[in-house]
């Protein structure tokens, strides 16, 4: 539902926070700091809303339906409840509760990252099949070269000044490329932010 109140809230809050970047006024800072704090709190609450929706919306719906996903969702819900209850009793600073991260989450995530080593290598096999153009070929050569450099197999080049300078110069290129990409992304961010601040884009309305 289109609401002028929501639009006003978005525009005014945004402008106050934005002005804080450019106008070093203590009065503005006094308003801006709690406003940013509220945004952090709301972001946390939004996170909770999303988690509740995930568990009690998406997965509990699936549990009610027949199918292969039923058990998957059941496991999600059970694990969530177990962790939540444990956390509520133990609190997050408890060393026992922290083992959830160090002995469950970390091994799973690290292993997933390890899987990536294989799957990305496998994807790279077909790299030139997908991107058979100048850009693809340059990318391909760079990947190989820098994998070799990262492995330390070219450490002997440290003794050869020309090679060392060449490799050092090569590492400048990403600086320029990244700077260009980052500036482009900043322009895109600026445009998106401004569209929201002038009310042209209102993702918060329904």
């Amino acid at each position, binding site marked *: 539902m289109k609401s002028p109140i929501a639009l006003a809230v978005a525009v005014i809050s945004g402008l106050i926070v934005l002005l804080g970047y450019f106008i070093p006024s203590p009065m503005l800072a006094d308003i801006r700091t709690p406003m*940013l704090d509220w945004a952090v709190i709301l972001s946390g609450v939004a996170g909770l809303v999303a988690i509740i929706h995930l568990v009690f919306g998406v997965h509990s719906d699936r549990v009610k339906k027949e199918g292969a996903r039923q058990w998957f969702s059941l496991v999600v819900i059970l694990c969530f409840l177990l962790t939540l209850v444990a956390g509520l009793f133990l609190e997050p600073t408890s060393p026992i509760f922290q083992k959830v991260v160090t002995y469950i989450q970390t091994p799973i995530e690290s292993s997933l990252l390890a899987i990536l080593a294989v799957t990305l290598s496998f994807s790279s096999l077909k790299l030139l099949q997908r991107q058979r153009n100048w850009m693809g070929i340059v990318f391909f050569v760079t990947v190989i070269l820098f994998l070799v450099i990262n492995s330390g197999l070219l450490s002997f080049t440290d003794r050869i000044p020309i090679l060392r300078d060449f490799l050092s110069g090569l590492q400048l290129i990403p600086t320029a490329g990244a700077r260009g990409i980052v500036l482009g992304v900043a322009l895109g961010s600026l445009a998106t932010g401004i569209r929201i601040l002038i009310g042209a884009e209102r*993702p918060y309305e329904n």
Partner: protein
Amino acid sequence: MSSAEQIIGFSIVVFFTILVIIFSTKAVRNRYPPIFRKIEPFNRLKRAIGMAVEDGSRLHISLGNAQLTDPANTSGLVGLSALHRIGQLTSTSDLPPICTTGSGGLLVLSQDTLKTISIETNTRAFFDANHAAMTGATPFSYAAGIMEFIDNSGVNGNVLIGNFGTEAGLICESLNKARVSVTGSDSITAQAIFYAATQDTLIGEELYALPAYLAAGPGYLASLRVEDIFRMVIGGGMIAGAILKIVGLI
């Protein structure tokens, strides 16, 4: 941060805003109609949208895991605009798009967007709040959740627009069955992974052009034109600064 920088920054914002508004006006648009270069992934995406309508398959839009309080949130917001537009375009299909995110704020917004689409296109019967989900609370669980969420959902096209990290590689794993996957991120790491693992990757700023290329509205087209102007200004500023630096004036 010096006051000079603050003045420059403020001027950039003010002029950018004014130019966006000017280029959005009908008079300017008609007098100087925008012409943008062709970007192949967008053509493929349009085709995928048509295909989705045609063969009764779904499109999956993933918005990344940027928090709304993070500067990287704009890529997710662009993803939302794309979701909105794609939802409108596929409204004649019996399978509306599904959306996944890794951030609470983006989830709420994506649900709102899906609802808005259903109202705009008179397809409220098709609206289901569970078509948008935060599939996981951490980046890796979000990626793992996507694998499961889009499995057997009839997804045959993916649009990954938002802030991703290394988990982008895992997400790409789950995209393999889809016909088309258009990917873009503000993160260079994710861009590199997408470039290596998918066909249609949007590089850098290109992702911000997605709504404009999907004809989402005059504001988006105007933004692109103003971005081009400011790109020139930035380039000029860099050259001028470099000369002044060499001369020793700054």
